[in-house]
């Protein structure tokens, strides 16, 4: 069986504790993963964090950029070390699908997305650094246009507690190495594949091994990563977001609650945007934080819900290798049933109706021997007051909420991506000013369409470098 060791600054370490990751549909073990203990994490980070940044600072940022670009190519195309042998790109797709439940074509799409980001990383960084000369980041200071600029790294390494359910999120940590900051990754239990393969691709492209550490493990290992790095990213649910809210050292990526907000000036022509709505809900099996989980309008909401339900309600589970497969499996036992139960509870409230139900013989929950699916679900909410209007789950689930335009921004709550379908200048201004919206699209842009040159939930460069005053006596 394939074995993933712990990577202690690039050095493999086989733990006495391993966990098996299993095929979501057959239950067969696919790989054994060495489990780090928190003490190892604390010790390595104390001893090796500064070294990680030092070895990267010995290489100019431009060279590191070239290396990670090369790494992106290798990630997508090369046979790379895994276990006792090598892993082909096709192996990667099959294996990632097998343990995450994501259809293979989606795994391939995510692979392409990561390669795309790496191949455009120079542009991404130019944008995120606002064209700052990289040497200033390396040296800590330098003149630009006759003005002294100084930036101090807030940490020698960035810790990351990664999820299992959405391989696309790995794009967030790809710009780190060229910024000469080391990487400390705690992979999601079902998704050891991407961090490992990306690390191997980076090593083959020339990135020093001392710059990357991988610590598979359970919750206490994630806590050790957070506790022993000055800056870290964590992915989790609402509880995780609340736990780390206000902690300046932790950037939390939680549920997106992304939405499409239809202005009164456009809503009578809502049919024109049906494809956009369906894509925003359904792409990547609804697993991303950028997937739309709420469509808000002041009228026609029942027709909108009906039309979306007609499109996505009939979608049923297909084998992961089927190119038409649109649904990812729930691989954690009991999770899908719990979600479906939660939906049933919220349905009891007046003003909530499950519109997709009539397209689904046998109900929304599809239980199989080793995994479960939930079929795409469309709810109509007669007002924003009902609890269902604030729900989001990690599958194609969307509420269509009737709400007057003037109440909409206040009622939607925190929203990662909002697509405002409007040409009304005053509504556009209100959306621009709304502090509960992070990424804003005005006009027909699907919520899942990202512009990689723009920051996502905060600018990672601002998170890792602080501008400060610096003077040097002549």
């Amino acid at each position: 069986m394939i074995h993933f060791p712990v990577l202690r600054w690039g050095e493999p370490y086989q733990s006495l504790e391993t966990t098996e990751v299993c095929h979501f549909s057959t239950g067969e073990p696919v790989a054994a993963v060495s489990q780090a203990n928190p003490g190892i994490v604390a010790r390595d980070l104390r001893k090796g964090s500064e070294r990680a940044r030092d070895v990267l600072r010995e290489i100019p940022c431009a060279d590191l950029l070239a290396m990670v670009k090369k790494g992106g190519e290798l990630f997508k195309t090369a046979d790379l070390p895994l276990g006792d042998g090598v892993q082909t790109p096709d192996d990667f797709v099959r294996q990632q699908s097998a343990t995450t439940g994501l259809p293979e074509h989606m795994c391939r799409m995510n692979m392409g997305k990561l390669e795309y980001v790496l191949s455009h990383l120079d542009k991404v960084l130019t944008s995120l650094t606002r064209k700052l000369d990289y040497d200033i980041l390396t040296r800590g200071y330098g003149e630009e246009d006759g003005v002294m600029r100084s930036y101090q790294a807030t940490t020698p390494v960035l810790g990351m507690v990664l999820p299992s359910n959405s391989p696309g999120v790995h794009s967030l940590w790809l710009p780190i190495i060229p910024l000469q900051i080391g990487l400390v990754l705690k992979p999601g239990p079902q998704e050891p594949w991407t961090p490992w393969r990306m690390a191997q691709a980076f090593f083959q492209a020339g990135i020093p091994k001392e710059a990357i550490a991988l610590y598979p493990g359970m919750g206490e290992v994630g806590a050790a990563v957070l506790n022993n790095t000055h800056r870290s990213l964590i992915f989790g649910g609402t509880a995780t977001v609340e736990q780390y809210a206000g902690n300046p050292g932790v950037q939390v990526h939680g549920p997106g609650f992304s939405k499409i907000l239809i202005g009164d000036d456009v809503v009578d022509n809502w049919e024109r945007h049906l494809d956009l709505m369906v894509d925003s809900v359904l792409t990547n099996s609804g697993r991303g934080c950028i997937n739309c989980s709420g469509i808000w309008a002041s009228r026609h909401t029942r027709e909108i819900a009906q039309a979306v339900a007609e499109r996505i309600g009939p979608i049923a589970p297909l084998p992961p290798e089927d190119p038409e497969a649109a649904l990812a499996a729930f691989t954690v036992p009991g999770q899908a049933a719990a979600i479906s139960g939660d939906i049933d509870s919220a349905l009891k409230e007046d003003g909530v109706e499950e519109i997709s139900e009539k397209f689904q013989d046998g109900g929304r929950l599809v239980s199989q021997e080793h995994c479960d699916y939930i079929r795409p679900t469309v709810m109509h909410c007669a007002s924003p007051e009902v609890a269902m209007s604030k729900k989001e789950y990690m599958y194609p689930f969307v509420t269509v909420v009737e709400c007057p335009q003037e109440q909409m921004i206040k009622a939607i709550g925190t929203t990662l991506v909002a697509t405002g379908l409007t040409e009304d200048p005053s509504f556009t201004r209100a959306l621009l000013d709304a502090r509960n919206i992070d990424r804003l699209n005005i006009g027909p842009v699907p919520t899942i369409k990202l512009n990689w040159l723009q920051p996502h939930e905060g600018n990672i460069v601002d998170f890792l470098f602080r501008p400060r005053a610096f003077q040097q006596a002549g």
Partner: protein
Amino acid sequence: MSTESAVTDGRATEARTGLDAWVREIIEWHFNPDTGCPFWLDWAQQAGWDPRREVGGFGDLCKFPHFEDEWLRGGPVRRWVPKAYADRPAFVFETGGTTGIPKSRVAQEDFRIDYELFSDTLPEKCFPRGSNWLMLGPSGPRRLRLAVEHLAQHRGGICFCVDLDPRWVIKLIKKGWHEHLKAYQDHVIDQAVTVLSAGHDIKCMFSTPKLLEALANRLEENGSSLKETGIQGIFAGGTEFTPQWNRFAHEELLDGIYMTPTYGNTLMGLAASPPSGPENGYKITYYAPQPRAVIQVVDPDDAEKVVGYGETGRVMLTTLTKEFFVPRFQERDEGEREPPCEQYPWDGVSGVRPFSRLASATTVGVY
């Protein structure tokens, strides 16, 4: 069944015969109105059968129900004191107690006897007689605190202690006050570092795994090490011990210092473990101090069935001392049944960890 045991059948049989005889003596003691404690005498009266007549050996203890530690909550604690020992000074040790009334165990000499027996298992070279100890573990109304101090005294040393309130630790965890938790751990380690730096010639210590790790890290941050403080032997326990942590400690923290993991709690004595290392995958196997305590590994769904060697089951404890009788208590731990070994010709348990069906309710924090 494993055949790894180096123990002859003869020694195992001898141990079993000795256990049966000890069970008869203990049952006679606890259920004789002249010597027994009010709790068990009342129990026998209500049960309607006389254990002194019906218990002929360890196997007959299955006639008793499983001991419930809830019985230990609240007073009067004197109901647990055997009549024959009514005039002896008594201690009360508590477990839990974060919320509500804690469980209490009355003790008189048991903790001393248990730790003197454990003392015999310690290698003299690593725990030199006459050397002083550091107790880096829970303080307050805990058996461990006094027991370790007695161990040090029994071996001719003096025990230095820290203040550590585990109930506050558990509250911090439950409240999610992680910064306070870290600060409290730092506070405890500050005390340990101060004691170790004060010229007390400390060569031995008790520590929990988490505190040992924190102490080693702090000393390294200060440019020192456990070894440099003069520590030669560590008796560790109090919380879960995994083979991986055991290996990590040996390879990266201890620098040749001897460490012996133990398993125990307020209800039982102290289960010791034979040396572990790379030769056995750092597996830790605990053996109860039979006949004073017996550990069985039983089917979680049918505690009457002991699982096969190497199989996983729930830990079931029977304590058989003249101070305290605890029949068939189902611990909140699970592990694998291990065969007898040369040093301990009776069953042991390895891989001890929180019982998986209850694990989510178990909180292990700073200590």
